[in-house]
């Protein structure tokens, strides 16, 4: 199927065996939780607590900002000890506003919204479901962290017909979705039904890569009650989990360039998101924890852990027996699309699917050599791009040229960099170029705005000058007329009248 519908892609070394047989274990409650206000795409949430407040587990501590945003909840009970800038789990190591909670060890729950326990049809409207998902702070848990309620609301603007559940998990090492599908298949399927109900779609496709046979079997079994949910086994090939490519592989529909999958009637949600939605609806619990895979050969005891959001990576690593040997790279997410962690003192957030400690062997980052035009990157690119040529243009600083041959169609999957025998960091070039183009774009928009303001000002000035001129001309005419009139009838003009006309 992949070979017919989707081109490119690469075969990777998977290493899922390090953690795939490790059942999800709960993380002991850490002493401190660090909850960044921005754990999603969009505007940072706005704190509703102050330092010194006592909070309960599941309590809202920051509400969604207007527009695209998602709220944040306390993942355990305790005291707010700080609301300050703290290092974010982002390679830049930039700080961002974070609510710090000292846990009290009681793990006392706040009062939660009333669970919806009805079987289908649910006793609530799709709109009510949406607002519950929004209030629970659920975001896409596959990595992009797009606020889920906004995705559910796409039906108001697009003709949707299909919900696609992404259980591909094509990143090497990661097994959190695999474990979730195996261990909580019923909850996942319940979440899928709720999502389908909220989206009002008839057709649901549940896609899982073939390298997860147990997950496939478990989901098939759980979905047996709902024959309209089509479970599909996909070939194991990276980047199968890429939204557009998954949609093409499963539905045969190709998302147009620069458009959303919603434009062709499909909405994609990750399995962990589906399970989070089920949990919110069935127990009222907001998104305050997630399953994280901790793996790599630099980890003593790889594991899948249910982690309270805000737990430091350091605590996770200690829980997994620590690092051994000293890893070459510490990564948040998978090795293909994940990002290096700036330190171990960063928190787990809603989009953290994995924490990987990779040895030099696993990373294999050799020195860069010249491009030999082997074309591996061209064959590997699932987007039909010519990475070697784009890289050449970017290197030369010709960003417009790179854009002209499809830079903005790159999904940053990293297949080209992975396959390059010369170890040229192609994706890095493209991410850089996209960032630059974004900045240029913003800049040119600002320039346009300034230009239009200046133009408006000039026009106003011109209008005023014109008006002044007209007034002066009118005055002159009036004067002339008055003079003519006084010449015709020499009557004394009152001084007050003259003054008025000046």
């Amino acid at each position, binding site marked *: 199927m992949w070979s017919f519908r989707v081109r490119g892609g690469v075969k*990777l070394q998977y290493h899922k065996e390090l953690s795939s047989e490790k059942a999800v274990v709960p993380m002991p409650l850490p002493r401190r939780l660090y909850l960044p206000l921005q754990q999603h795409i969009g505007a940072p949430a706005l704190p509703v607590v102050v330092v010194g407040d006592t909070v309960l587990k599941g309590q809202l501590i920051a509400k969604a900002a207007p527009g695209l945003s998602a709220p944040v909840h306390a993942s355990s009970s305790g005291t707010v000890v700080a609301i300050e800038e703290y290092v974010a789990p982002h390679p830049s190591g930039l700080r961002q506003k974070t609510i710090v909670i000292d846990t009290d060890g009681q793990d006392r729950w706040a009062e939660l919204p009333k669970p919806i326990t009805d079987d289908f049809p649910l006793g609530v409207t799709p709109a009510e479901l949406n607002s519950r998902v929004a209030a629970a702070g659920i975001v896409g848990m596959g990595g992009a962290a797009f606020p889920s309620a906004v995705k559910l609301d796409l039906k108001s603007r697009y003709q949707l017909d299909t919900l696609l559940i992404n259980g591909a998990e094509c990143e*090497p090492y990661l097994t959190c979705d695999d474990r979730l599908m195996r261990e909580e298949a019923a909850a996942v399927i319940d979440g899928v039904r709720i999502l389908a109900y909220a989206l009002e779609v008839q057709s649901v496709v549940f896609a899982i890569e073939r390298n997860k046979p147990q997950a496939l079997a478990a989901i098939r079994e759980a979905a047996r009650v709902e024959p309209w949910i089509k479970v599909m086994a996909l070939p194991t090939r990276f980047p199968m989990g890429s939204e557009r490519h998954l949609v093409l592989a499963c539905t045969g529909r*190709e998302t*147009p360039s620069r458009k959303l999958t919603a434009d062709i009637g499909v909405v994609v949600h990750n399995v962990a998101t589906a399970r989070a939605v089920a949990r919110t609806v069935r127990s009222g619990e907001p998104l305050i924890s997630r399953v994280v895979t901790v793996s790599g050969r630099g980890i003593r005891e790889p594991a899948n852990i249910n982690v309270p959001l805000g737990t430091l990576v350091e605590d996770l690593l200690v829980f997994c027996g620590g690092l051994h040997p000293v890893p070459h790279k510490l990564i948040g997410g998978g090795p293909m699309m994940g990002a290096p962690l700036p330190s171990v003192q960063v928190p787990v957030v809603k989009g953290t699917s994995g924490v990987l400690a990779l040895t030099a062997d696993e990373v294999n980052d050799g020195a860069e050599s010249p491009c*030999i035009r082997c074309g591996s990157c061209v064959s590997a690119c699932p987007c039909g791009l010519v990475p070697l040529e784009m890289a050449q243009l970017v290197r030369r600083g010709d960003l417009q040229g790179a854009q002209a041959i499809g830079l903005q169609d790159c999904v940053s999957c990293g297949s080209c960099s992975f*396959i390059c025998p010369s170890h040229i960091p192609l994706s890095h070039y493209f991410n850089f170029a996209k960032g630059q183009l974004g900045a240029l774009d913003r800049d040119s928009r600002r320039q346009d705005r300034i230009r239009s303001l200046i133009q408006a000002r000039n026009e106003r000035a011109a209008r005023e000058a014109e008006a002044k001129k007209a007034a002066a001309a009118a005055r002159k005419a009036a004067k002339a007329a008055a003079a003519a009139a006084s010449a015709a009838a020499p009557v004394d003009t009152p001084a007050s009248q003259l003054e008025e006309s000046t």
Partner: protein
Amino acid sequence: MITMATRAGPFTHTVNSISRTMLWVMAALLPATAYGLWLFGWPAIFLLVITLATALAAEALMLKLLGQPVRARLADGSALLTGWLLALSLPPWAPWWIGFLGALVAIVLGKHLFGGLGQNMFNPAMVARIVLLISFPVQLTVWVAPAPLGSANAPSFSQALTYVAGHSTLPEHMSAATSLGVLKTEHSRGISVAKTTEQLPPPEQLAIGREPGSMGETSAGLLLAGGLLLLALRIISWHIPLAMLGTLATLALVSNALDPSRFAAMPIHLLSGATLLGAFFIATDYVTSPVSRSGQLLFGAGIGALTWVIRSLGAYPEGVAFAVVLMNAMVPLIDRGFRPRVFGRSRRGQSLDTKKPKIPL
């Protein structure tokens, strides 16, 4: 401009590298090379050593002059492979200065004057071969009958030294002509190609390669085996070799069927000259071939067609080197015209149609 400090992913990489690729290509060349060395004895061994040594020395010198990291770049194996391919394409008993000059031309003119690894437009080994053929047509068309090491005709180590040094000429009984050469000269004398073909070695012998020819080009079977190894390892794809061989075979079949007195039969085209070496090892050179699969098909077909045209209609008996270099010149054009279709766009680059949104945005 681009900072590498916080390099973005991926954080995993294939084990593939330039040197690994070059080493596998050389490994795939080993059987045909070993056969050629055995078949043509000590002079061929000296020739190979000279081209390899000169290529490496010239590469090191150029890297040093251009201020590039000498050891790292030398280790990538590309210069060694260039020298190797050049040796395989030369007459096996050529004097030392042919090999020396050829390797120098290949590395300095063919590679570094274009900007070094990855920048050259033309296959360096083929550029060198053409320069030599045009400059020294006599030395480049002296062929010897097979004289395997240990056989009665085989020159001894010291005899070989005198040939390679250029101090003595070939003994009369050792000189011979290649199949393609025989066809061309006989045809120019008015003798039908079909008739000449009867006196040539039969196809099975061409496949084994016990015949006069360039040092590493004679054994079609061993070259094919090496080519298949590269295909199996996915170091090369089938597109260029198949397009080249297919086009050459088709043209040979059709022309031979139409006029057997004028055009050589298909097996001769495929099994003699540089056809197989060219198809699997020279035309597939990454640097000088198109990057897209469709472009590679056109490129391969072009080489096959030009090879047939030069051999059948041109003045030279053999045309692979010319055909490759001519098509090398077309690569920038092909690369521009044959890009893959971008995901979500039509062939012409337009964004695909969408379903209409319920409420226009």
